[in-house]
């Protein structure tokens, strides 16, 4: 026999442990925002048969910095933070990824280890597609290549903007910029303004901005005193977006 079966393994039969639900790609809520949005039905079915879908709870890692890549992660629902560890062991968030985003694609194309760690910020449904399958599909399906190139280009542009912001802008301006970014991507309209729905701790926000929690809290207090920002429970609410754009000192 190729494999011996162990006693405890045979007891697994018929037991469903997880809330794992196999979802077809056609039913994915992020399908039209994703890399595979232009695939035909047959290709989507093939993709569905070759992907692994898991539900990551808050704090669970998808992959770890420095370890070998095995494939591409497609976020169906939820949010993920991508972070790097500094020399002092301090975490720096380099990217926030949400529904429709892909992770791990740079490592499979450059054949390098993961350059950062991805951790779920909330319950996040992620589809994993292995490297061999993706590399094969990239050559056969031009829409996948095109969409991946679009994302790589977009991410490069965002990274360049972040580098410029970190070196040229004050913490107050960067805080305003981050709030605008979250307002555009993770918010819902309320009677008072835009409520930011992504639950980031002050430490996580400070980590993304490259500053300390104390400085960030001071900036947030200043924005609140200017009546630009409000708070409902633990959620921040953008009350005056126009003024926030002024404070962010955007170049366009």
């Amino acid at each position, binding site marked *: *026999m*190729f*494999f*011996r*079966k*162990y006693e*405890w*393994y*045979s007891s*697994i*039969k018929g*037991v*469903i*442990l*997880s*809330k*794992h639900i*196999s979802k077809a790609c056609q039913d994915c809520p992020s399908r039209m925002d994703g890399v595979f949005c232009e695939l035909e039905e047959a290709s989507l079915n093939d993709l569905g048969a*070759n992907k*692994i*879908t*898991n*539900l*990551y*709870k808050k704090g*669970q*890692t998808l*992959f*770890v*910095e*420095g*370890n*070998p890549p*095995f*494939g591409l992660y497609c976020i169906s629902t939820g949010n993920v933070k991508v972070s790097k560890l500094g020399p002092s062991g301090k975490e720096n968030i380099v990217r926030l990824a949400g529904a429709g985003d892909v992770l791990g694609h740079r490592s499979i194309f450059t054949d390098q*280890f993961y350059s950062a760690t991805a951790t779920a910020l909330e319950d996040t449904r992620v589809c*994993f597609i*292995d*490297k*061999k*399958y993706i590399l*094969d599909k990239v050559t056969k399906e031009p829409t996948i290549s095109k969409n991946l190139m679009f994302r790589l280009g977009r991410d490069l542009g965002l990274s360049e903007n972040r580098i410029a912001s970190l070196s040229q802008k004050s913490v107050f301006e960067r805080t305003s910029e981050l709030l605008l970014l979250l307002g555009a991507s993770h918010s819902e309209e309320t009677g008072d303004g835009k409520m930011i729905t992504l639950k980031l701790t002050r430490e996580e926000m400070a980590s993304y901005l490259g500053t300390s929690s104390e400085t960030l809290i001071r900036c947030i207090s200043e924005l609140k005193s200017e009546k630009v920002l409000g708070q409902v429970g633990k959620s921040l609410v953008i009350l005056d977006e126009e003024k926030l754009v002024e404070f962010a000192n955007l170049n366009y």
Partner: protein
Amino acid sequence: MNGQIYSQYFTILKENFPVVVYKNEEIVTHRSHIPRVGMILIEGEIELIKTKTSTLIKPCQSVGIIELWNKTPTKYKIKVFPGTTVLSLDLSTLKSLVDQNIIDQCHFSLG
């Protein structure tokens, strides 16, 4: 855990799958997740963690392959320690080896 790999199959697997080294500790599969890849331990440590107990697997033992093939969730967390070398078995290559009759499909079924 899936079992002991015999030497004649190990050569076939080594020809078709990459050997990777983990630089940092990682929980490669969380409890009740489907593994992304199956692994055969070559050198180092892999720990299978249940709620109250844990087991270290030995070199040449495999983990996660059957769950990956059948797309069933694991009953345990799989933790890989730094410096561990594994043979990494992905689903696409496993399927192509089965299609070519290099590996027997029945070895991946439950029961």
